[in-house]
């Protein structure tokens, strides 16, 4: 609930900038930091050490979301020759990375469903929503197509259907929210994975499981759960046997949610809105004192200021 208090503050600040919101700012801004996601939100733990690159998840996603036919069949491993990213035709892709270990690792890419999503906070038509189940969903019917969400996403996930003339929209993984998650079922990729690379469960449980795995096999895993804290925490989290930068993760994102970088500007908005009018009206009066005195002595003939 805290996040809503914070949002309300920002709303007030940006839209109106009343003094009342200015007063309520300090306590809400402090509270905002403690938002760690919905308590019972679901998540997925991705164990890179288990993945063999069978691309079943890609195939399952394509079917579940009714995406267009791929250029190559999903059992074609030649796609691993290049590093792919999510696109308007693929909400998830698996890439292969040569690592410092003697074997390559595979990494699945899809929306990480942040606790405080940058796409959501950057959207000026509120097209995104973080559901209590953990999914970051998107409403294509209000999207204007400014693509700020794509700029804001630290993971380079949202794609855009540039090819569409009439109805180009953002395309990204929505955690199978409408077809599965809403009904308590795991997303299609999780269900299709043969080796349980993807474990579906409550996010808070998955964090415990992840650390338990690291504890029980300290030689196998690097001691880090990617996504537990990154950019404020994500619903999808990762375990790896090599340092995460070796498998294409950005390890410099920091643990602050993206919105925290923008807050510095948002806090000055109500100040400018409230202080500027008085300040500049004051300047005007000072600068024009002589003129107005002169004018007062003469009769007020014209209303020129």
């Amino acid at each position, binding site marked *: 609930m805290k996040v809503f208090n914070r949002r309300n503050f920002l709303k007030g600040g940006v839209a109106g900038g009343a003094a009342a919101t200015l007063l309520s700012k300090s306590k809400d801004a402090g509270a905002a930091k403690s938002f760690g996601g919905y308590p019972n939100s679901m998540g997925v733990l991705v164990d890179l050490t288990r993945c063999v690159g069978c691309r079943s998840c890609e195939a399952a996603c394509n079917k579940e979301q009714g995406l267009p036919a791929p250029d190559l069949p999903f059992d074609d491993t030649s796609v691993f020759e290049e590093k792919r990213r999510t696109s308007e035709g693929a909400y998830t892709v698996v890439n292969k990375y040569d690592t410092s270990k003697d074997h390559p690792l595979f990494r699945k890419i899809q929306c990480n469903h942040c606790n405080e999503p940058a796409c959501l906070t950057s959207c000026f038509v509120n097209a995104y929503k973080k559901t209590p189940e953990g999914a970051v969903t998107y409403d294509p019917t209000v999207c204007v197509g400014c*693509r700020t969400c794509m700029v804001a996403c630290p993971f380079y996930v949202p794609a855009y259907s*540039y090819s569409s*003339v009439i*109805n180009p929209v953002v395309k990204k993984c929505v955690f199978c929210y409408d077809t599965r998650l809403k009904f308590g079922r795991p997303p299609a990729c999780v269900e299709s994975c043969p080796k349980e690379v993807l474990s579906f469960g409550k996010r808070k449980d998955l964090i415990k499981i992840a650390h338990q795995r690291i504890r029980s096999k300290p030689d196998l895993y690097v001691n880090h759960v990617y996504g537990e804290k990154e950019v404020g925490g994500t619903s999808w989290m990762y375990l790896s046997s090599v340092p995460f930068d070796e498998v294409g993760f*950005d390890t410099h994102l920091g643990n602050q949610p*993206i919105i925290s970088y923008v807050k510095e*500007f948002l806090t000055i908005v109500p100040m400018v809105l409230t202080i500027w*009018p008085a300040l500049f009206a004051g300047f005007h009066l000072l600068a024009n004192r002589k003129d107005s005195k002169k004018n007062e002595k003469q009769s007020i003939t014209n209303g020129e200021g």
Partner: protein
Amino acid sequence: MRTLAANGKTPINTLEKGDSKLMWTVKEKLLLGMTTQEYMAQAVRNPFNWLLAVIFAVGLPIIIGRFAFGLGYVTHSSYDYPWGLFLGWGLFVMVPLSASGFMLGTTVEVFGRKDFKPIERLALLNGLLGYFFAVVFLQVDLGQPWRLIYPMFVSLGPAAVLFLVAWHVATYLSVQVAELVPAFAEWMGMPKLKKFIKSMIIGLTIAGIILSTLHQGALGALFTYAPGKVHPLWFSAPFLWFHFFTSSIFAGLCMLIVVSTICKKSMAWRCDANFTDNLDRLTLGLAKGATLALITYLVIKIIAVAHDSDWHYLATGWGQWFMLEMLIGVILPIILFTYSIRNNLAGLARFTALITVLGIALNRLNTALITFNWKLYQEIPHWREVVIVITIYALYIVTYRFILYRLPILYSWKESKDV
């Protein structure tokens, strides 16, 4: 037109024809008091119009193609670079260069520096058109431009920086239209309308300052959504909005110097003595303001690098690029402006203003495109994207010229004796 003026034809600058009581009709005013044939003849004589014709012949079909075949036809459809030249140039460069409106509005109306009055309307027009065409660029770039009003009325996301930009640009556009209504009212002969606007000019100007401070800053704040993508030397969470705001001050002033120079050189027939005679003095005055803003900007740029402790980046290739931008766009102008102000050299100030404008354009393109995704690959815009940008910019110039030729911007309207 220059030729005609030399031949003794005076451009329309009052409601009545010559000494008679006959009023100019709107059509005559539009044709600048010429017959249609005369007007066409002077248009064809102008080689610049031929250049424009070529640009439109190539560009307009491509703009139509963008709406007929989608963004994929004119851009590389990049997911990594969602914003290309349309916004990189059209929004992030055009808007700071249009800050002249609120700067001169503040100077003249709020601070009471009536000595800047001869150039105030040009500054306001420069602001209005810059913003208007920024919106045109935005409309080309938006996936679904017909939903432009959604953030206003349909689905509001008030916590987003772009929400603020959208609202402020929209309201500021109306403010600027209102600020220019007096010029239009004079031209059309509607004194009551002019009086009405004049009565609220202070309110409008202060609204302009607020809106400008916030949305100029907001354009910078937009990039604070991408802390990992913009190169650290161009990124600063606490200062980026301030960089954009401060630099918009000298960007607007220098753009005004450049535009006024072009006006003086290319449409001297339209400028009256009040404008022409005061221009050198005003140019140096504007240069003074720009220099102060440049120094402020330089200082907070350095503070930002120190605050984030980005010194080690200066030794990299990106660092040299950054220093080049600062050298050409900031430090060199400070030196040249100071020299020209000391020695009363308006010509040098004009040249310096041009460098500064190019420098600020480089800064915005650096932030939005060139150093964006510095850890990935570099995106080279599609050639059609470049053509569209040139075409719309040409459209901007044509509109600009059209209005300058007619409305009392560069000259004062001669009030009728009996109105």
